[in-house]
């Protein structure tokens, strides 16, 4: 009988703590830099951290902040959701079938080449001002990024694993769930992170140009009336929203999707 005894090693908790400390120091450096700059620059064009905090408190005290935040979040989630789902499906199909990939190549090229502002103008022309314009714009901008990442993920899958699946007569479904989907998890998550950043920029641009509400519109309005602390307040709110999405959703999702890699470290 061949026998082996299991044994697992310890993790580098100290390294993680050090990395966290440096990340906090980096954030503090930005805050201090902003504060120093605000001491020298005209307050009409650069609000101080304290003025910005007061503006945030004022906006949060009423309904303004929460309503605009929810409107933007709804557009972001819908645009991103539709864009990611479409990009993943097309990416898997394109990765598996070269003819689909060739067929979609001109579309991918158009999608990645056309400037966001042109999509915004066309969407405004077709759908007017409001939700549909912004969601359409976000969706169209997200799809090519997700598609490209997913196709390269499918193409990078170890063919020997696919061959193993064929030898053991895996059904198409089993091949998809056991080989392809876990195999593309890493590039798909990288694509999702990239697409989320792009989507936030797109939703704000869409709201600046083609909506009468949302954070982008509120930002644009504050700029028009030279309400600089409020303008900076919306920037901070936007960054907080991005932070919430990245640390509250994307990173846990990535940890879950790549948990096997963590176990192997």
């Amino acid at each position, binding site marked *: 009988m061949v026998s082996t005894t*299991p044994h697992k090693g310890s993790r580098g908790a100290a390294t993680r703590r050090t990395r966290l400390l440096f990340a906090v120091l980096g954030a503090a450096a930005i805050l201090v830099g902003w504060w120093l700059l605000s001491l020298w620059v005209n307050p009409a064009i650069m609000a101080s951290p304290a003025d910005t905090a007061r503006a945030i408190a004022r906006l949060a005290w009423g309904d303004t902040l929460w309503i605009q935040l929810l409107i933007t979040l709804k557009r972001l989630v819908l645009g991103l959701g539709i864009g990611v789902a479409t990009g993943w499906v097309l990416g898997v199909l394109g990765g598996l079938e070269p003819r689909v990939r060739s067929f979609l190549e001109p579309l991918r090229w158009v999608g990645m080449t056309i400037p966001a502002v042109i999509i915004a103008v066309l969407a405004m022309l077709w759908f007017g001002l409001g939700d549909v314009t912004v969601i359409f714009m976000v969706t169209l901008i997200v799809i090519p990024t997700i598609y490209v990442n997913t196709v390269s993920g499918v193409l990078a899958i170890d063919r020997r694993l696919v061959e193993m699946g064929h*030898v*053991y007569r895996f059904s198409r479904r089993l091949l998809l769930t056991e080989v392809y989907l876990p195999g593309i998890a890493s590039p798909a998550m990288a694509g999702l992170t990239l697409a989320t950043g792009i989507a936030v920029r797109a939703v704000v641009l869409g709201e600046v140009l083609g909506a009468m509400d949302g954070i982008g519109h509120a930002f644009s309005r504050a700029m028009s009336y030279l309400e600089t602390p409020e303008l900076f307040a919306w920037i901070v709110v936007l960054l907080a929203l991005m932070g919430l999405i990245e640390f509250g959703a994307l990173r846990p999702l990535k940890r879950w999707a790549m948990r*096997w890699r963590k*176990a192997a470290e």
Partner: protein
Amino acid sequence: MITFLHVSKSFDSLKVLHDLSFHIAAGQIVGIVGPSGSGKTTILRLITGILAPDGGTVTVAEAAVGYVFQEPRLLPWRTALDNVAAPLRAQGLDKARARSVASHWLERMGLQGFERYHPAELSGGMAQRVSIARAFATEPSILVMDEPFSNMDATLKAALLGILQGIIKERDTTVVYVTHELTEALQLADRIVELNPGGGLRELDLSDRAAVAREWLATTLGDLQV
């Protein structure tokens, strides 16, 4: 069980098999030996249907086939248990039953306690044992093995050869076993065929295995006194 009739196979301009004919009866354990590039792995890939011949016919009885690849080919994102269970789920077993069978085979390979380990946490030899467990778990009528012990030390190889012999005999499995070590094949096989580069085939006379081993050692070691 397996019949090759005038089979030829080339990769681009490289002719690997030429007019190859042989038959393997049910329950036989056939070792295929030969130098690198002689077409040993190609024969296994033709048997499993991964490759199609350029000429001639390959006939394989309708049966479950287990394949122990040269490298383990485990799904890195699945545990050892789920790697063994995956082909069983392809056969229609539910998850709990598949895992139960997989656990039994991992234990037979001496891997009890490692069920929840991922392939990257296992040594090369342990990963190959998981691969062997996966092949046997499907209860194959035909088992093909492509140099399955190349990642293992001599002691582990000897122990596993003993285990494999027991399992193969108790199940009456037809085995096609590729190796470049004749002594390994002599231990396991009923028949041994030697492939030469270019596709020629010679069946070794195993009536005196010790003589075959001596001849092979003398050829391998060259001028050294055996």
